[in-house]
Structure formats: C-alpha cells, structure tokens
C-alpha cells in the first residue's frame, strides 16, 4: 500500500531515464472513474508544469516514479474544475464518513497499485483520518522513510473506505463537475444527518441541504436548531425553499417563517401552493407563546356518527402525515368539536362501533389565545398526547401534539 503523502514530491523519470519533474498533485477524474488517479501533475522549477496520464506511468515507489513514454508526449497542465485534486481538495479538508455518520478531517490518502497492460494504476482505497497519517504528514521530507514507517506503526490506524467518503463542496457548479451527490446521505437517519450538517460551515451546510431531496431536507431542517434553520432557508433558492416548506408540518413551517425577515417569508409564501400557504399564513397570525402559536393546522377529523370501519377505510385512502396521526378529532352534526379518539382505541374497537362510543372523557380543548402555560398544565394534568384547539364557535382549528410541547419546554 502507498500513501499520497509519501509519493508527493517523488522524482519522475521518463522511459529514457531523463528527469522530468517532481510530482506535485494527483487528480481523480470522477466523471470517468471514481477512485482512479487519472492524472499526475509534474513540475520542474520554472518550466511549464506537465501532466502524465494514468496509462503513461510504468512504476511507482515512494520518492521515485517511472513513466513508459517520452517526456515529449506529456501534455502541459491546464487547470480543470472537473478534476478532484488529492492535495488541495482532500488533504486537511473535512469529509463526511457515511458509515461512521460523522464529519472528519483527512490526514492522508491510501493508494493501491493495480497493474494493467504495461502501466500501473493507482486507486484510492481509503482516507486516513488517524494518527499514522498525521505522523506521515509531519515528518515527510524531513525524516528518513524507515523512521516514519516505524513511528506510524506505533499508532492505531483509523481509516475510512473510499466508498463511504462523501465529499463536501460548497460551490454548486464544482459539485456537479465532480459528480458529488448526497444520495448516500439520504439513507442516514435525519437526526444523524442533522448532527453532521451542524458540524460543517455555513456554505457547506447550504450545499448539502440544497442537494438533498425536499422530503429529506425538510426532515433534517426540523432537527436543526431554529437559528441555523432560518439561516439556511434564507439563503436557499426561493423555489427550492418553498418546496421544502411544503414538506414540513405547517406549524414547523410557520415557526420557521416567523424567524425570517418579512420580505423573505412573504416571498416564500407566494411560492408555495395556495392551500398550504393559506394554512401557514393562518398559523403565522398567532402569537408564538399562545396555544395558537404552538398548534398545527393539519389534523384528522371525522363525523362522530361514522363507524370504525368507515373511518379506517377513509383514512387509508387519504395521504395522511403519519407523524401527526395519533388522535382523531370528532365533529358533531353542527360541525362543532365533540371529542377525540386515540388511534390505539380505534385499533382495538369492533368494526361497527361508532366513534362517538370510543371518544375519551373528559372533553378537553383550549382556545387559540390560551397561554403556553395553560397548554403545559393541561397536558401534564391529563397525560395528553394531543389537544384540540377550537375557535369561538367550537370549531376545531388546530391541534397541539406532545412533541410540540416537549420542544417548547426544552427552549
């Protein structure tokens, strides 16, 4: 196994044994192959730097590289945004370790040799984030090779396989050119992903959220703290931001918009589809420290006369948000609030039982202008998981779930 640090600065000779230059950089061309060193940057004093292609390299050893072509067949170096530079883009930079689910800093890059007809290809196998890599970085070029290998052996290795490495790049154009996707991140739990995103800088965060699909992005944003969330949304492309807001629960979206400057939130609301925007707008009207400010306008309500079977059938047909589906709100014939049925009760009930039979006692609700404290007290006293908010006409306008209460209490 070879290390990028050991090869950096290696003297390179062409097929006749003439000195060509020293290796200054390795480039991967992700559009072609994701782990192969495709180009070697060679420089010699003030001469124009040259580039050797992977099939022009005959042998690689620490401090010494041989080419299988003549110096004249090498091309002069032209900077290329689509090339991933090992030293500049990888060493010392932060990457996401998708298997360990955290952000780490790269100390060195491990390379494996692969013999193909007449040439040697180097492939990136893993990145070194532990002490051995640090030792190499520190002593390379100022201490003998043997000494370095000996010292690094004293420390436990810590590496991440290349396929688990997710690069972080804040420039969206470069991201496309380098084929950086965040598909692997979408498989992580949103809470883990939120922790990762928190460890990154603002621009990098922005890049990751912008490239996630809307649903994942909405879940991650819901896990981040309020200040971060508003910073991210503010800088997103308004269309994308509106799409993400649509995916969020209306109360979370309203909380988020309330933290944004007035123009930004107006702009986002205009981007959102009319129905959802109206819901969020309504919630925004309420003082955040009242029941109205805590409630969610998305809740499931049915007529109290319907049977369990009818209700379940109806619910299956709807595209319901499962996170909110804990309790069903009942309406009487006057469309006024008449009670609630936890889904657990619904589960155990007979098919033909009406919901009015299943509702829990006592009948609890609060008006939207009730204070936060009243909400906490009623949740505590009756061990509620959900509380219905009704207007003056006793019509349900929203629901507060226990997770709203918990997150409010933690603030």
């Amino acid at each position: 196994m070879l290390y990028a640090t050991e090869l950096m600065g290696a003297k390179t000779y062409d097929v006749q044994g003439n000195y060509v230059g020293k290796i200054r950089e390795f480039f991967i061309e992700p559009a072609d192959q994701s782990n192969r060193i495709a180009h070697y940057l060679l420089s010699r004093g003030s001469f124009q730097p040259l580039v050797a292609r992977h099939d022009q390299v005959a042998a690689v050893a620490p401090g010494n590289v041989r080419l299988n072509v003549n110096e004249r067949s090498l091309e002069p170096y032209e900077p290329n945004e689509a090339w991933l530079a090992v030293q500049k883009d990888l060493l010392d930079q932060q990457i996401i370790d998708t298997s360990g689910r955290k952000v780490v800093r790269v100390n060195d890059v491990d390379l494996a040799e692969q013999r193909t007809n007449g040439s040697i290809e180097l492939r990136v196998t893993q990145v070194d984030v532990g002490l051995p890599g640090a030792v190499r970085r520190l002593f390379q070029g100022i201490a003998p090779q043997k000494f370095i290998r000996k010292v690094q052996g004293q420390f436990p290795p810590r590496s991440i396989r290349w396929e688990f490495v997710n690069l972080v790049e804040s420039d969206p154009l470069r991201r496309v050119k380098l084929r950086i996707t965040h598909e692997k991140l979408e498989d992580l739990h949103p809470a883990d992903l939120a922790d990762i995103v928190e460890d990154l800088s603002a621009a990098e965060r922005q890049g990751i959220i912008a490239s996630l699909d809307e649903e994942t992005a909405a879940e991650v944003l819901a896990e981040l703290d309020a200040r971060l969330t508003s910073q991210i949304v503010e800088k997103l492309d308004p269309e994308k931001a509106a799409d993400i807001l649509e995916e969020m629960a209306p109360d979370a979206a309203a909380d988020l918009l309330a933290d944004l400057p007035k123009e930004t939130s107006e702009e986002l609301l205009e981007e959102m589809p009319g129905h959802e925007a109206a819901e969020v707008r309504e919630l925004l009207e309420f003082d955040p420290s009242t029941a109205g400010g805590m409630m969610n306008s998305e809740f499931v309500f049915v007529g109290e006369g319907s049977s369990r079977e009818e209700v379940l059938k109806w619910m299956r047909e709807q595209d319901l948000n499962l996170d909110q589906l804990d309790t069903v709100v009942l309406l009487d014939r006057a469309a006024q609030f008449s009670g609630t049925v936890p889904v657990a009760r619904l589960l155990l009930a007979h098919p033909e039982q009406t919901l009015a039979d299943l509702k829990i006692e006592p009948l609890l609700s609060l008006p939207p202008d009730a204070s936060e404290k009243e909400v906490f007290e009623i949740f505590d006293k009756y061990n509620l998981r959900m509380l219905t908010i009704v207007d003056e006409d006793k019509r349900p306008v929203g629901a507060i779930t226990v997770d709203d209460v918990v997150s409010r209490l933690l603030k």
Partner: protein
Amino acid sequence: MWNRENLEAQWAGWTERAERVMSVVRPYRHRIALFLAVVGPGLIVSNVDNDAGGIYTYAQAGAKYGNTVLWSLIPMTIALYVSLEMCSRMGAVTGKGLSDLIREEFGFRVTFFLMAAILVVNLGNVMAEFTGVFWASETFGVSRFISVPLAGLLVWAIVVAGTAKWVERIFLSICVVYLSYVVSAFFAKPEWLIALLHLLPPQLMHYIPTVRPFVQVPPFSAGYAIILAGLVGTTIAPWQHFYLQAAVVEKRVGPRQYPATRNDVLVGSISCMIIVFFIIVCTSSTLFVNGIHDIDNAGTAALALKPLAGKWASALFAIGLLNASLFAASILPLSTSYVICEALGFESGIDNKFSEAKIFYGLYTALIAMGVIFVLFLGRFANTILLWSQVLNGFLLPVVMIFVLILVNRRDLMGEQTNPKGFNWVAWISTVAMIVLTLMVAYSSIRELMSHPVS
C-alpha cells in the same frame, strides 16, 4: 379582629400586591435574561483578559509610571477591537474556527507547529492563573497545598460536569469586584482632569502651552518599554482569537446576526479598557504618588484599594484576584484543548464521552494538573514563569495576527467581507508595533534572566 375572614382578606390583599410587584419586576427580569443571553463571547473574552497576570501588570504600570502610561490605552483598545473583530467576522462568514481555517489553508505541518506553540504558551498562562490562586489564598492565610489543588479540582469538575456555561456567567458577575478599583479610585481623589488629559499622547500634548504644566512626559527608557509591552501582551493574547472565533461559530452567528456580535466585541474591548484605566489611575494615585514604585507581592498591590476598603483592602483584592484566576483557569485549558483537537482532527467537545475523546480530555486534564503541580512544587519560580509566559504570548501574537490577516483578506473565503483598506492599515500597524515591542521585551527579559540566574 384576627378572625378567619379577616385573615383571608388580608391574604388576598397580599397576593394582589405581590402580583403588582411581580408585574413591575417581570419585564426587568426578562431584560436581565435577555442581557445574559447577549453577554456574548466578546465580553467574556476581553474580561478573562483581566486575569492574574493582567492585574499584576496594570498595577505595576500604575505604580511605576503613574499617569504616563495612560495614553497607551486608546491605541490598545483599537488594536484589541480590530484584532478580535477580524476573528469574529471570519467566524461569522466562514462558519469555521481559526484553527480549522489555518489547517485547511496552510496544511498539517504548519498547523502542528502552531498548535505546539499554543500549547506551550497557554500552559504558561495556566500556570500563571494558578499562581494567582496561590497569591490570593496566601492573603487569607490558607496553605497553597489546600487552595491550589482544590481550585484545580473545581475547574476540572466544572467542565466535566458540563456546567461551564453557567459558571462562566457567575464568574462574569463576580467581575463586578473590579468595580472596587473604580470606587477606590474615586476615594483616592486623584486629579481626574489630569488623568483624562493623559489619555491623549503626552508627547504631543507637551507642545500645547496651556496644558503643558499639567503634562508628565513618559521617560524614554527600556523599563518603560517593557511595561508597555507587558500591557499589550496581557491585553491582547493569542488564545483570545481562537476562543472568540470558535465561540462565534458555536453560537451560529451568521452574517445577519453579525452586527450584534460586532457590538459585543466593541463593548467588550472598551469595558476591558475602562477597568484597566481605573486600575492604573487607582494605583497611580495611591502607590505612585506615595513613592511606592514596585509591586513585589499581592500585599502591596492591595494597598491601592485602601482608600475604599481600609483594612479590608487586601481581602477585597484577594477576592478579585481569586475570581480572575479561576475564571481564566476554567476557560484557558478548555479552549486550548478544544482548539488543538479541532485542528489536528481529534474528537473534541465536552458532549463526548471520555472514551470517545481521550486526547481531548487527556490534554485538558494534563494542562490543569501541570498548572497545579507547578505552583505547588516550583512556586518560587513563579515570577520567572509569569514573565516568560508573557514574553511567549508576545512572540506568538504577531504570528497569529499574520495568519489572521492573510486569511481575513482572502476573497475566496470571505467574499465581500474582507478587510476594508483602512482597517488593514490599522491591523498591520498594530501587528508591527507588537513585533517591535515584543522584540524589546524579549531582549530585556532575556538579559534580565541572564543577569539574575534563578537560585
């Protein structure tokens, strides 16, 4: 008369009155909470500055040269603000700590040596803080073998228990003790106008005929230069820049919240200097005027508080010193190990378990333990260490400043937020001035150490 109904009516009256009082108090409570929430890293970082070494240096300056050192405060405030503002701006714009940026832009080796230097310098500072604890406890007649290990344990436990944030605020409130210098200065009845006059450069004021009789021109000597450099060295320390930028990043200050942070830094820099002003005026009008020009122990330094506290002066001084030392000792080792681990890629942060972040906790514990052990067994070298820790601080500071200046002017990192031209001038001039002062101090302290070998 004391029947049941009467009692109930009275009780109702009481509750009503209490309600009314609360309704008046509540908004204030809210405001205080708001203030505490805003008490930002800027205020903390400049107040930790007035630590044991700081108080010692300011008192020394006032006793030795009286009002003539006061003119340096305004340029120092500017330099402090300029250098701290750059770091907080970098934190807000890039969202990365100073050590992270140095690592990413200058590579592993440069970072490693810089971190090694920071470790050594900050270890010196930690030792100085525990020396402060030692001096303070001596005043109360408590053996250092009790007070210093206790202080070490306390500081260590504060962080490991994860209560650092709260404790920070407590220390910050005890910083009010510094106000005793303000009060004491008033009791000492100095010539206020003359003191204020000396805030302007006396070298220039000297040429204005009407004020000439009141102006004392500072001597042009090596001793004076050392005091000046000491003032700069204790006021603007390298670790502050790392701490501040990390704190700004951790508080998620973005470009939109940045103006508030800038004010916080500005208020911090100015308030720190106001305290320094009063300490110097106070010592100048109590010690300097009475011919006491050398502060060799905490007892002499406490004399400055006599006009206020009379025989309690030394107790008051000791409390201030103890608080300052503990405050700094609880922040320095933590920020040092945090910065080093971040830069070199080790797990860091107190939300990690011990087994997850061994190096972080190890470093943190070792810094405190070495500080304690040093004071316990090598206490007689305390003055040497104080001197050296300041000299090393002075050496490191220009290096850090140069890194900061290079990074903050990088357009690819900072975008539109690079330094304005005038700002750059001020920053470079202060950096060069620091280098000159540092070299002078280094020269003279090395000479001093050579001529008085420690027995």
